[in-house]
């Protein structure tokens, strides 16, 4: 899984920075955006293999960000993150085109598994 480029979008900076470092240690290339607007701008200007997107952020919400990402690149796999205790918003994200969702706190192995699955699906598509 070398040279896989992941974009992490979450306003919790210490969360994304740490997650990015853990992904880097596993051979991924990680970039960070702290809000939906910056994430969209990064996607418009460079290519990513997968996006990890938090649902609840100030400004543009996770679902609005997802909608705009899909307008730029429909095929780009997006995995949603939610701190909510229910799966409702995650399911809504999947209905809008996200490939999967995960609840916070994360299990890194589960995230890696979902990234792999998302990339495999993306290759098939």
């Amino acid at each position: 899984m070398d040279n896989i480029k992941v974009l992490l979008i979450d306003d919790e900076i210490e969360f994304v920075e740490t997650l990015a470092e853990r992904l880097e240690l596993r051979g991924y290339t990680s970039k960070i955006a702290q809000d939906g607007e910056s994430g969209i701008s990064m996607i418009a200007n460079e290519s990513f293999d997968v996006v990890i997107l938090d649902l609840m952020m100030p400004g543009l919400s996770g679902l609005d960000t997802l909608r705009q990402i899909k307008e730029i690149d429909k095929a780009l796999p997006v995995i949603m993150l939610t701190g909510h205790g229910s799966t409702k918003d995650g399911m809504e994200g999947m209905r809008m085109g996200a490939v999967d969702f995960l609840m916070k706190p994360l299990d890194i192995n589960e995230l890696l598994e979902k990234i792999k699955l998302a990339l495999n699906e993306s290759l098939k598509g």
Partner: protein
Amino acid sequence: MQVEISNDKPAFLGKVTASVTHDIQNVLAIIKETSGLMEDLFLMHQSGNLENIEEKIGTCIKTIKKQTYRGVKLTSGLNGFAHTADTSQGAINIFETLERMISITERLFKQKGADVSILECKKACSVDTDPVLFQLIAFACIECLIDNFDARASITLDIQSLADQTAIQFLYNDDTLTYEDYNQQITHSDQWIKITALCEQISLSAEVTADFPGIFLFFK
């Protein structure tokens, strides 16, 4: 109106609790990732693939400490907030009650881009009221200002202890608004109808005055 009010209180308690517990999930997520990173670094160091991990481990420890304090502040605030529902009538310290409510609902307002703060109140202002309903009204005043004006602004709460009256200013920090404009926008909003109806239940009064853009709440 009584039916609507009785339904409002659980909804308010639920909204605040959901927001705080979401924040706590974030705190736990950071602690989990940071301890995971420490484990990654330690394993790589043990297998000889990484040297000089001391600085990184030190940063991780600082992050965990910081998030622990954040978590404690959130849970203490939520606990204090939850206990305000213990009684439907009792003496509350206005500053302490509002400061805690703002502190734990910060994320809800930041979500909309607004920054809410309260000015330090040296004099202890205490009132006998329904604590949850009082906080619900204060919350509704803040929401009313955020929803009816540009949310990306700041709102300041200022408690004023006058000779015979305690009052709270919800000041929307925008000098460009004229009295006619903000009075029209606030008093014609759905929230205003709710605020004034709720105020009647606990001898509070809400007004929009020419003195400042925002809402003036005072105990009758």
